[in-house]
């Protein structure tokens, strides 16, 4: 356990919605994830921070049921489990919203909204989609999240990236998710759209969901997060609660801390007339 600080649950009696304890995942002889611990509580946002190749995607795939963990324990509401597939995760109230995979672009918004959980009416060979309900619910649920769609029949690919994320979040909330896992929801978005998405993330939290926010942006994480887990090269390099860490400290750790100092030192010595600005990239191997 490399946790620098054990996060204290708000209600010690209630088990965490999701708890990973020392979870590892190997692909052949590659350690994709080693000894990572994470807690997700209702009404809280747990942020997972890390650079490219830090193991964020692997972690998300384990929580979403796409991959099985090889070591450690995975508890959902105190019960140890191994998820069989994404359906299993969904049935246990874990909904995952992927950055690129959230929706099927050519399908209308309303078909996307209910994809995989379509309501039907009628019986036997006449069992059919309850199209009216699907359209009306989609419109109403999106409106409730503050998204006012012109036409729920438009292919979802015509929406902006932020809107697509919001539709996916609204969908998860509507289907009674207890835990919402968001994979880099703001990665491809502009400042304003990121703000919109973070607002919906906070709305989901206020609705009592536990949220796992995967990001490489400490500023976004610190805005909404309650707990922070830092990943680096597949291992956990830090774990904090909001009152145990400042934004500067988080940014510093995220950016590689001492490595960054070293890098800036090296760049300083190089007799380059270029921009001396130091960026926290390239300190990781995939």
């Amino acid at each position: 356990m490399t946790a620098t600080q054990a996060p204290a649950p708000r209600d010690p009696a209630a088990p965490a919605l999701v708890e990973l304890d020392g979870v590892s995942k190997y692909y052949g002889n590659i350690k994709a994830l080693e000894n990572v611990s994470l807690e997700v509580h209702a009404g809280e946002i747990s942020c997972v921070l890390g650079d490219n190749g830090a193991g964020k995607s692997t972690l998300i795939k384990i929580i979403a049921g796409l991959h099985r963990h090889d070591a450690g324990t995975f508890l959902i509401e105190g019960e140890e489990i191994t998820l069989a597939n994404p359906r299993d995760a969904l049935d246990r109230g874990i909904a995952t919203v992927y950055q690129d995979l959230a929706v099927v672009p050519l399908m209308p918004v309303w078909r996307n909204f209910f994809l995989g959980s379509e309501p039907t009416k009628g019986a036997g060979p006449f069992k059919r989609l309850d199209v009216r309900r699907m359209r009306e619910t989609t419109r109403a649920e999106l409106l409730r999240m503050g998204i006012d769609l012109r036409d729920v029949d438009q292919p979802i690919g015509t929406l902006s990236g932020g809107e697509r994320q919001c539709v996916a979040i609204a969908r998860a909330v509507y289907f009674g998710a207890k835990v919402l896992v968001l994979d880099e929801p703001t990665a491809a978005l502009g400042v304003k759209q990121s703000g919109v998405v973070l607002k919906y993330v906070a709305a989901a939290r206020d609705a009592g969901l536990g949220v796992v926010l995967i990001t490489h942006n400490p500023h976004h994480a610190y805005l909404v997060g309650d707990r922070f887990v830092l990943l680096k090269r597949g291992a956990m390099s830090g774990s904090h609660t909001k009152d145990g860490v400042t934004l500067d400290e988080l940014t510093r750790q995220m950016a590689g801390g001492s490595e960054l100092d070293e890098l800036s030192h090296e760049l300083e010595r190089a007799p380059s007339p270029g921009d001396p600005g130091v960026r926290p990239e390239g300190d990781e191997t995939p």
Partner: protein
Amino acid sequence: MTATGQPAAPPTDERLLRTSPLRKLLGRPELGSVVGAVAVFLFFALVADSFLQASSLGTVLYAASTIGIMAAPVALLMIGGEFDLSAGVMVTSSALISSMFSYQMTANVWVGVFVSLLVTLGFGAFNGFMLTRTKLPSFIITLGTFLMLTGLNLGFTKLISGTVSTKSIGNMEGFDSARKVFASYLTIGDVEFKVTILWWAALVAIATWILIRTRFGNWIFAVGGEADAARAVGVPVIRTRIGLYLGVAFAAWVSGQHLLFSYDVVQSGEGVGNELIYIIAAVIGGCLITGGYGSAIGSAVGAIIFGMTSKGIVYAEWNPDWFKYFLGAMLLLATLLNHWVRKRAEATT
């Protein structure tokens, strides 16, 4: 041609006015094929005198139905993002199995028909199972089954009957009733309509219903459009794909029984090349070759274009060698039109 029959939209947003009915129409996948069908119709109406006679209608629709019966499930499969190159010879296999089983067992032909259904569904299941297990492209897997079935058709037929065609089952028990179901005529006025037209209409109606009104239809679009996203929200991707191959196999069985009961023997080398015509009909009808988009109605319009072109050339008393040229040109034009229309329709406002 939309066939959506969706309930009237609930209280509409005033901004919806921006989506004009014309744009809605342009957004339909079948549009390109309907425009093409009208053009082909007008063309042959002008150049072939006998094309507009009532009796031609029955002939054209019959030619369309033999392709359309297969094109409907092939369209669904393509919307689901996969190909089936074995569909053409599977029809022949199905006819051969039915005929040879009945003949060899001296059984009622209905027994052969039933056995053929099971075995043909088995072929479909094999395609689907291989695809989902190996995760190889369906192009390769069904190319394999295409060649294997072609070989089996010829090999078994020669082994059992000594020639390339099966023995006649025309005087066997149940033949007449089976012919009624799969290959009879209905006379309306003085025009003869083959019963395959009914099978075709029923299959297109069922395929359309499945596609736009059932959960399975929603899954077909999703699996073809973005399989990973579909899987992530809990769509049973494997089950959907296998179901689609079973649909093609079922239609191959219907088509094969028609092939058998139209005569009473089956030529074992038939069917090769038809798989591409089914795909062409589906693509002319608006199916995206990459999956996720298309319609069953469109495949029917594609089949009608096929029927009109193949028979229209005969009515115009041209050399039928030109047929393939026309079919190829239609395919290119329809695909270009579809592409252009979709670009226009999806342009965000």
